[in-house]
Structures are given as C-alpha cells and as structure tokens.
C-alpha cells in the first residue's frame, strides 16, 4: 500500500482514473457494449474529475488512500470483461464513498 502522508485528493483520483482506464479496456472485449462503456466511463470520469477540481489540493487520510488503493487492486485483477463492466460502475462509487463524496 502507498503511504498516505502528504497524498492529495488529486493524486489518488489520478491513480484511480488510470486504473479505471485499464478496467475499461478489459470491458471493451465485449464488442456490443463498446459505446456503453465509453459513455459510462466518461460519466464517472467527469464525476471524479469534478471532485479533483474541487478538492484536489486537500490531503487525504492514510485510511482513505489505503481504501482507494485496495479498490485499485481489486479491479487490477479482473480479467473477465463482464465483471469489468460491472466494476466500471462499482469502482467509481467505492472511490467516491472513500473520499466522502456522493456517488
């Protein structure tokens, strides 16, 4: 796990978004859902970026950094594209809750 000392909201969201982009690539193996995946990813990315814009310089508690790192670990192990699509909705919700935000 990363050390939370001095970690900002912007930094954890940047990490989360990088992991999220990789998750979307796994989901894209389902050709029929390609457009949905693009729209879904954009909607949640916009939400997370809005939080980063509003609170980016704020330092997060180590427990929050750890929570988001665990969520990143969780999606990093996903190989099944169907599960990936499910997590394209779930992962941003978990991340936002960890940051104390409404999904």
């Amino acid at each position, binding site marked *: 796990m990363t050390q939370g000392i001095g970690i900002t909201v912007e930094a954890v969201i940047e990490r989360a978004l990088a992991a999220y982009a990789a998750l979307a690539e796994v989901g894209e193996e389902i050709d029929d859902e390609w457009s949905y995946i693009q729209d879904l990813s954009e909607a949640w990315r916009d939400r997370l970026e809005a939080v980063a814009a509003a609170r980016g310089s704020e330092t997060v508690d180590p427990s929050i950094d750890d929570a988001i790192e665990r969520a990143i670990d969780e999606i990093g192990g996903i190989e099944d594209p169907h599960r990936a699509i499910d997590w394209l909705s779930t992962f941003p919700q*978990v991340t936002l809750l960890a940051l104390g935000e409404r999904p």
Partner: protein
Amino acid sequence: MRFQDAARDGRAVVYAGIQADPLVARAADALADAARDERILARAVMNGGSTDPTHWMAMFPALFGPAADAAARARSEAVLAVSLEVADRGDAARSQFRGAIVEELTARLLARRVGPAAVRRERRILFDGVRAEIHPYDVTVERDGDAEAYDCKWGARGIGADVLHQLDDARVHAVDEETALRVALVVFDAERSCAVRLARSTAPSAGTTIVALETLDGLATVR
C-alpha cells in the same frame, strides 16, 4: 387486466431453487435495513474477487472506521458477511443469487408499504385480446384498482430493450383498459449508471420508473 402465476419450465424450476435458498432471504433482510453506502458495499463484495473481510473493511473506511457508530457498523458487518457468502458461491452461481436477492429485496420493501399479502412473485399480466408475454414480471403488487409491476436487475447493463418494451407494453395495455398499472425497473446500481444506459436506449421508458440503488427505500414509502 388480471394476474396469473407463470408456468414453470425447467429453467424456472432451477431458479426457484435459488430464490428459495435461505441465503437470499438473509441477504434481502440485511439489505432492506441497509443505507445507501452499505448497499454499495454489498454490490462491490458480491461483484468482487476477494473473500477476505478485512480487505473490504479497509476499502470502506466510512463504514468500518472509528467514526462509524455501533449500530451502523453492526449493519455494515451484517451486509458484509452475507455478501461474502454470496461471493463464496462462485462465479456461476453468484449472478443468479444476485438477481434473486434484488427481487427479494424489492418484494420486502414493497411489503412495508402495501403489506405482504399484496406482493406476488413471478406473475404474468393478462389483458383482453392481447397475447400474453411469455416472461413473468419479477414482482407485482396486486390490489383492486391499484396494481404495480416490477422487473429487477443487478446492474445498469441489464436495462435492455426487451425489459423496457415489456414493462411499457403492460402499462399501455392497462391504459387501454382504463386500469391503473404502475411499471418500474429496479436496478441495484447507481442512478448515474442507469441514466447512461437509458440514454443509449431507443425503447420506450418515459412511463417506466427507474428505481436505482439510491432510491430503493422509496419502494417502501412512495407510490
């Protein structure tokens, strides 16, 4: 308009076994009393790869951290425990369990508003002169002059043309018969994801209420 038990084919018989599993009832019990964040926990765990409770407790610091009050923490622990049981059933079974849990949760929340006797499962809706749909509705509320039909989905991806057409067809046929029928799709997923899915659909949805994870409690309080 009238309601009828659905005929059971082989697949329905197998699924009925899942619906009757005590784990489904326990999960629905826990989720009926859960708050939004605890339901998101359930969604994550039942979708997840890890069956280590400490992993999930660390992922949800607001639910399991020192700031959580005792009652909320007890609820979260109950949700986590039952969600891990579902996850532990394996990939093949868990999707069926998740679907059955959303249906049972819907039925329980509706029963708080209309009473359990009015809530039925796996029912077809018949209209005069209209060929009946093959697939039954997951949950119905059947009261004189006041009926409701619900289909249930685990995720926003489940919002498809077939289910939207089926719900809207029933609503339109009820209007034709000058009968009240509320139709809704219950989705155990975020409103934002549901909105994205709906935006891509060309199927009729204006007359169908979407009940998302954030608004589930409205089933128990609002018609």
